[in-house]
């Protein structure tokens, strides 16, 4: 075991799979010689050569098309979108093409592609860099959306994503890259896709969160425990498809739920989960399912983001209102 930041765990996962399978290729803007704008791919070109780890021209749709073409010719591409807001340029590649390759060809071709992109607020990046756009991809059948919240999960989920024959949209929260460390095994291991993790057990209320919000939820749970409120914290890890079994089982125990996301309130992952809880466990609920989200505006980059982003205080407030309902 080694103590690693999330970004080191991500690099380590890619190194492991580049070593493990010669068909794994890694490419994108600045990922080669430079090692990526966040250094996520640092040293990998040096170790595996320009044939396996390479820079592309600056064009996201081109990068997506490259991944699809390499996928059908027998490679296992890892493509990087430098910041999540640039995914609009490759939306056809993601939602229109790789997501339906298996379906469109009746299984003749796969899209064994992992799309990596940094996202998430609180680090003062420019406009269209920090947005939480996972909800857009979660709307798309045929593509998994994975968001790790710890270094251990980051490595295990990324290895699972790279090994998957279906396309995975793997999102890396920028604030978590270097803000926390954790024990990460040096060898290859996988964390199952589509499986949520119960990060903290509790009987009074269920918090469903993912990405950086898992840590806000844990902080809220910690503070609520001082008032004898035991919150159960579920880390989704995969936001599409969602592990509803784990959520519903928890809600049946706690009878209350708060779904937490950094993204704006309208539509999105939390809205879908709230609807599923209502459909599947309404008679177990003592209060309406609550949501903690950002407001439905464009992301206000830099100056107002600390107020705009939901935090542990918002979660505590919603939890208390739910319990007092």
């Amino acid at each position, binding site marked *: 075991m080694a103590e690693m930041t999330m970004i080191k765990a991500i690099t380590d996962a890619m190194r492991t799979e580049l070593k493990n399978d010669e068909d794994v290729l890694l490419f994108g803007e600045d990922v080669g010689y430079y090692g990526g704008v966040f250094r996520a791919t640092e040293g990998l070109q040096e170790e595996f050569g320009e044939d396996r780890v390479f820079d592309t*021209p600056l064009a996201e749709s*081109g990068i997506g098309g490259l991944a699809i073409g390499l996928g059908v010719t027998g490679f296992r591409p890892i493509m990087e979108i430098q910041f999540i807001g640039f995914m609009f340029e490759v939306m056809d590649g993601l939602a229109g*093409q790789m997501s339906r390759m298996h379906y469109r060809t009746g299984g003749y071709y796969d899209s064994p592609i992992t799309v990596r992109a940094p996202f998430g607020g609180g680090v003062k990046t420019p406009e269209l860099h920090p947005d939480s756009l996972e909800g857009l991809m979660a709307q798309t059948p045929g593509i998994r959306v994975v968001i790790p919240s710890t270094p251990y999960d980051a490595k295990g989920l990324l290895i699972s994503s790279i090994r998957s024959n279906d396309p995975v949209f793997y999102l890396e929260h920028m604030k978590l890259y270097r803000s926390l460390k954790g024990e990460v095994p040096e060898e290859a291991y996988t964390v199952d896709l589509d499986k949520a993790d119960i990060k903290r057990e509790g009987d009074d209320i269920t918090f469903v969160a993912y990405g950086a919000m898992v840590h806000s939820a844990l902080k809220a749970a910690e503070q609520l425990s001082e008032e004898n409120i035991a919150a159960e914290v579920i880390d989704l890890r995969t936001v599409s498809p969602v592990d509803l079994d784990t959520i519903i089982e928890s809600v049946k125990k706690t009878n209350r739920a708060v779904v937490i996301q950094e993204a704006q309130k309208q539509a999105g992952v939390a809205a879908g989960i709230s609807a599923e809880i209502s459909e599947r466990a309404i008679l177990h609920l003592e209060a309406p399912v609550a949501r903690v989200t950002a407001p439905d505006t464009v992301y206000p980059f830099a100056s107002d983001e600390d107020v705009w982003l939901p935090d542990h205080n918002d979660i505590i407030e919603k939890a208390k209102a739910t319990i007092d309902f």
Partner: protein
Amino acid sequence: MAKHKYETFQILDENGKVVNEDEMPDLSDEQLQDIMYRMVYTRILDQRAVSLGRQGRLGFYAPVAGQEASMIGSHYAIDKEDWIAPGYRDIPQLIWHGYPLWQSYLFSKGHYKGGQMPEGLNALVPQIIIGAQIVQTAGIALGLKKKGNSQAVISYTGDGGASQGDFYEGMNFAGAFHVPAIFVVQNNQYAISVPADEQTAAETIAQKAVAAGIEGVQVDGMDALAVYAATQKARQNAVDGDGPTLIETLCYRYGPHSLSGDDPTRYRTSEEDDEWEKRDPLVRFRKYLESKDLWSEEKENEIVDEAKADVKAAMKEVEETPRQKVSELIEIMGNELPNNLQEQLEEYRAKESSE
């Protein structure tokens, strides 16, 4: 860049006379006859598809008459092992590459079995999004280069496709990675109703290769030999490691954009149609072959009969194919069935078994 570099490349004139002896490709009499055979067969397939479409027995269909030289001439120059990344109009090239006719009808009708290529066939399913196949072509070509195979990939789009961002990204990537790709733009003069000269201020689409740093050539797309020769050269360059080529074929679609309601009389004159029909690829190639005693009316009639019989047999196969089930669509969404689909699969199986 001087315009003369992009003068239209031609070998056979409208009367089937060789006007460019130096560029005459090295084809045997049998191969010449084979090109004509494929063009005639394709014309009949198109006529039958239009008729089946009007009877409501097909789904989506985009007519190809007028583009036979462009389609068959270019496809004839590539190898069996090469890849094709077609647009939705490029069904003939797929069929001559080994895609069964009856499956092309299933594709037209939206049946998933239409997308299941026969084992070993290197082709993408016809692309619906204009230009998406062009960036994918860059990826396929890079894959072929990395595998060290001496194969190329040929992609097809139309004049409208040359306006898409993906057209530029795909060519630029292919040029930057120096990969074995051939981009064919079949300039059939109209993107549905918008004429080619409203797509771009450039005098030719071929010259757009300059910006990508790759070879570009404009060809008379009604001249099968010129299209063949240009594509053969592009393929040779591709597999020799000399990089990609953009080929613009000047042609015309006689019919509507598709059978889904387009009426070309609203945007084209009959004079224009007549003008292009004088350049018909079948007429000029027939005249050329007749001048060499390689063609007869009898031979052509046999091909017409063969194509008609094949269409009939393919339609029979289609009509005997069981209707697809929603449960099957759920099963083919991906390699692994995620939990949401597992649940929905059970739901639809139950629904289907009670039908």
